[in-house]
């Protein structure tokens, strides 16, 4: 089913780009334990991406690698938020918190999707995202309440990344076609806001007062970052078209 495949692509692209970004931390973390932790999260996200992309690809006779390596920028459907640079550790944690809360709620609902494969992948992913959320929450507490510098960096990261959160909850015509299969993003907003507020509150941080950015990653209109991400990710595979690895 083409619509289901396109939906799986949304989920897969978010996870893939986030994994690609996070993987850069491996060997660069603030302590070895974080190299391991961020590596774990990256690996989980990559796993989810592979499942969703493989499933999407089935509808079109394509493999996960065809989709990851041989699509052009405008064919990707990732959210602007996952495309944002790692920045400092605070930025990575804020991005991680926003996404973990979002994916957690999304997968919690998708477990009941009428599409069995999506339900099954989501059930597996949910268990792992549990840990991602715990990790992000713990660091938000630590950095928000740690030192003056860490709190300052967290506030800066919140200001910088907040504009990209609105896009997470934008409904697209595709969702109309997938009643019972997909989750309407807009329906996740209230709970996301509530949980975020709770975590930020306990971390002595606040929801920043900056406007939402106009973003349409789902329609293939991406941030200026995606081109660089793909140039790097795809360079080797594209030098050897048709090769296996």
């Amino acid at each position, binding site marked *: 089913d083409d619509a289901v495949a396109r939906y799986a692509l949304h989920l897969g692209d978010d996870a893939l780009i986030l994994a690609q970004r996070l993987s850069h931390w*491996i060997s660069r973390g603030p302590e070895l334990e974080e190299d391991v932790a961020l590596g774990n999260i990256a690996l989980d996200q990559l796993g989810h991406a592979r499942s969703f992309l493989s499933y999407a690809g089935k509808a079109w006779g394509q493999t996960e690698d065809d989709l*990851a390596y041989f699509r052009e920028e405008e064919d990707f459907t990732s959210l602007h938020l996952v495309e944002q640079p790692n920045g400092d550790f605070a930025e990575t944690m804020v991005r991680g918190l926003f996404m973990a809360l979002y994916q957690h709620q999304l997968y919690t609902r998708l477990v009941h999707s009428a599409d069995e494969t999506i339900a099954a992948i989501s059930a597996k992913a949910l268990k792992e995202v549990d840990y991602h959320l715990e990790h992000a929450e713990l660091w938000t507490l*630590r950095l928000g309440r*740690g030192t003056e510098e*860490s709190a300052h960096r967290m506030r800066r990261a919140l200001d910088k990344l907040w504009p990209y959160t609105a896009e997470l909850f934008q409904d697209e015509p595709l969702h109309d076609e997938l009643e019972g299969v997909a989750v309407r993003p807009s329906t996740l907003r209230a709970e996301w806001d509530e949980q975020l507020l709770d975590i930020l509150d306990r971390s002595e941080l606040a929801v920043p007062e900056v406007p939402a950015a106009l973003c349409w990653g789902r329609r293939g209109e991406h941030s200026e970052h995606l081109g660089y991400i793909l140039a*790097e990710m795809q*360079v080797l595979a594209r030098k*050897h078209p048709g*090769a296996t690895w």
Partner: protein
Amino acid sequence: IAGQRRFEAIIADDSRIEPRDWMPEAYRKSLTRQMSQHAHSEIIGMQPEANWITRAPSLKRKAILMAKVQDEAGHGLYLYSATETLGTDRDTLNNQLLTGRAKYSSIFNYPARTWADMGAIGWLVDGAAIANQVPLCRASYGPYGRAMVRICKEESFHQRQGFEILLELSRGTEAQRKMAQDAINRFYAPALMMFGPSDQDSPNSQQSMAWNIKRFSNDDLRQRFVGMIVEQVKVLGLSLPDPDLRYDEESGQWLHMDLDWDEFKRVVSGGGPCNSQRLARRREAHEDGAWVREAAAAFARKQQNEKNQHDQKAEVA
């Protein structure tokens, strides 16, 4: 004196020394040096491979590579813990690495220039590491031996994955095959040098053997390794870049080319292609992460204070 006698008895019995046992200062020092070098090698060794994670040519290979590099961080962590049981803490060990006072395996100062290097590093570098480490599973110092058991298991897995990468390339396109052969050409000699100089030139070897840390001579281990890869390279349909390589029936030994020990010394003492880069990356990660570690520590103190206050209140009530 009783401690000394007990230590000698344990060694004689080929049994295990544990952290609380008495041990000679030289034994402690030698082990601390060897184990921390090993830990540092795991940590620095993450870099050449991390260099290809974002560019891995398939998602499956990307996942395998990520998991591998992550395992290396894990190995570093075990080994630092094991070393800490000898009385030197991780901050001190890390500081020795960052200031260039501690060494690590010189092979990681060579660049990982192509994807095929992921194969060659897995097959040859991890292979040589395993040949070195399997006997260390029986090292007289308990925590070291036990760490080695766990590490060796994962390393063999990594070696097989490296071999698979090369196998896939060797059966692929002309360009892939060429890439694989080129990687083997570059990593062969440095991998053989991982066993260290010949035993006559290796001052610590004898004492290590006497202490049941080391079990075989550098040359013996190198022999065994060459014998193994000679067979494996045939499966790949590729070759080892060694015109002198042959089995000498008489001595029952593999004869290989002379190794460039001058280059080895140069690389060990800081002059490899990537020494500066590898250490700079570790230093930057450490410096950039300072505020994060401070924040985590400050938060932990706050939590402890809150808990103490809470406990006091509970007591009063």
